[in-house]
């Protein structure tokens, strides 16, 4: 089912959704990514019919979904904490959507039993029909919730933080498995998450939301490699920020002048991921990456499995770099040693844009703009 969302607005005490426009393609697996309070869950609940927008339209295959009766919406929803019926067995939970159908459309009880068995097979819980939810692990409950949602044969599956309550290992397993189910059933799936890794790993496309608006939408590589706003850049990973100057469409960063045709003249900020900070022993040989003037001093080293996180001090600012163990050995770095810094793939935003984001974001937000904090030091 194709979903078109136009100018969707909802205001509670504050603006929750601010003129959302979004098209979800048939059979697409779309991730809604954003911090808490960004409106992503509200958007999902409106799609499900659990919430009503103040204005705007939602169309399912061209039909106005907001006035569509529930049984013709063909939407199913997996709740954040599953909302399983605790007093029913796994079987009865999964069968619920079929048993409550009006008599004319209700399958016979042996047909229901067969369908439930099939679904439990699909979610790999074949032997668990007689258990109660309290007797299952978190991952198993999640799979029961999914089987229950699929039982009503929806065209659209909506998932609210589907893996939020699970531990890291189960989460990754379930992620792959959910993707498989999506591919096999031909559903249109929308899921909400605040975990950027999950969104990028799972979605065909990802919509990054912030304060009720969609900041950017695209495939995971598009989003990760070409973040269009400072917020998206910062939300998708750790960020180093460097002040630079734009003049006539060119930004001066270290020893390089980079083309930035879209940016106005004036102060700008170059953002670089920790793994795009290249450490070298000397300024030679020259490369395409911008070389910062002067030495940096290693302040702290921590080995994280195959990679090493290096904290450096350069011109009174802290810089975080992630390098491989081999590089660490080659450079022979330890706390206190000196090296040069090159910046690979900087993304440059005008300072006005970043300041605007800073002004809007509250200091208590979990995903505040880290570079601003760092620059103040």
């Amino acid at each position, binding site marked *: 089912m194709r979903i078109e969302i136009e100018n969707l607005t909802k205001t509670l005490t504050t603006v929750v959704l601010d003129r959302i426009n979004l098209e979800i393609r048939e059979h697409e697996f779309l991730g809604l990514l954003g911090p808490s309070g960004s409106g992503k869950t509200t958007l999902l609940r409106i799609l*499900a019919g659990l919430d009503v927008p103040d204005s705007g339209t939602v169309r399912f295959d061209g039909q106005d979904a907001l006035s569509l009766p529930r049984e013709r919406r063909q939407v199913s*929803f997996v709740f954040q904490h599953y909302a399983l019926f*605790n007093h029913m067995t796994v079987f009865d939970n999964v069968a619920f*959507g079929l048993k*409550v159908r009006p008599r004319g459309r209700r399958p016979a009880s042996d047909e229901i039993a067969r369908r439930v068995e099939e679904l439990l097979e699909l979610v790999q819980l074949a032997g668990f029909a007689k258990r109660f939810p*309290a007797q299952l692990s978190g991952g198993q409950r999640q799979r029961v919730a999914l089987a229950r949602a699929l039982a009503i044969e929806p065209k659209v599956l909506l998932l609210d933080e589907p893996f939020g309550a699970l531990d890291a290992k189960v989460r990754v397993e379930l992620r792959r498995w959910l993707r498989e189910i999506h591919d096999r059933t031909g559903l249109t799936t929308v899921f909400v998450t605040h975990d950027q890794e999950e969104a990028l790993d799972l979605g065909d496309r990802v919509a990054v939301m912030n304060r009720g608006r969609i900041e950017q939408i695209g495939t995971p590589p598009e989003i990760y490699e070409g973040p269009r706003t400072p917020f998206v850049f910062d939300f998708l990973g750790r960020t180093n920020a460097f002040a630079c100057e734009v003049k006539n469409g060119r930004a001066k960063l270290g020893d390089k002048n980079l083309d930035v045709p879209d940016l106005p003249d004036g102060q700008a900020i170059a953002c670089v991921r920790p793994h795009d900070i290249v450490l070298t022993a000397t300024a030679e040989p020259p490369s395409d990456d911008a070389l910062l003037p002067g030495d940096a001093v290693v302040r702290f080293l921590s080995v994280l499995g195959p990679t090493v996180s290096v904290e450096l001090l350069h011109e009174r600012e802290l810089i975080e770099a992630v390098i491989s163990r081999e590089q660490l050995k080659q450079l022979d770095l330890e706390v206190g040693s000196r090296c040069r810094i090159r910046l690979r793939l900087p993304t440059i935003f005008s300072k006005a844009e970043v300041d605007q984001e800073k002004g809007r974001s509250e200091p208590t937000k979990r995903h505040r703009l880290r570079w601003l904090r760092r620059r103040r030091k």
Partner: protein
Amino acid sequence: MVDLAARIEPRHARPQASPLPLRESRWLRAVLIGTALLFLLLFLILPLAAVFTEALREGVRVYFAAITDPEAVAAIRLTLVTAAVAVPLNMLFGIAAAWAVTKFEFGGKNFLITLIDLPFSVSPVIGGMVFVLLFGLQGVFGPWLMAHDIKIIFAVPGIIIATLFVTLPFVARELIPLMQQQGTAQEEAAWILGANGWQTFRRVTLPNIKWGLLYGVLLCNGRAIGEFGAVSVVSGHIGGLTNTMPLYVEVLYNDYAFAASFAVASLLTLMALATLALKTVLEWSAGGGRPDAPIH
């Protein structure tokens, strides 16, 4: 110096390792438990025993004569009828109120919750008076009721209304915190899956609240059977017609028919004890049943 330190140290350590603080609390515990037991004995068990001994003082024959007296039978019947009408009505009201308060958002919600508590905070006598003022001869609706030959005050309807008023909060009070804690996710899930309002209530909400509901109904029932103050005001004490059991007990007592009075009182006590026993059984089966059974 070293020796001294070595000798002091274990002594310092001893209070933590030895059961000294426990010994203190054991003494304290004995006092507390003793006090509690004494209170229990004085204020619960002794009166209860007194009721039954007084009732049987003049023999079993007198006892049975007292409770099979036509007026006694009428009082028993009236009490049972009152409870049979008031309890289901308040059960419905309690469920509806709790459902509205916990599953929906609307203005004046806190006011409604406070209002539901009103019968608890107002003296039952005032509860009765209010209805006399409303439906009595000199009351607001009195002349109209009179003209249409409808008797509420000093009749059975008044007794039922007064009982309804007094027992109104029991079920709602029991359900509201329970349903608040359960939230609305399961109802939303049922709605998404296609259940209509009644199916959602019967298959999802009701099973989740059934223990709380039964508990509230039992408390409500206990009070409905035992209510004295409000009912006394609206009853008029017409023997064989508008005397409930508690009122009849008082009438007998005032007539110096002590044995008969206590006999009826003992019946009333037995009803209360049965309610209590049922409640305990329910609690036990809710808590000690299957590990997967819903605990509410």
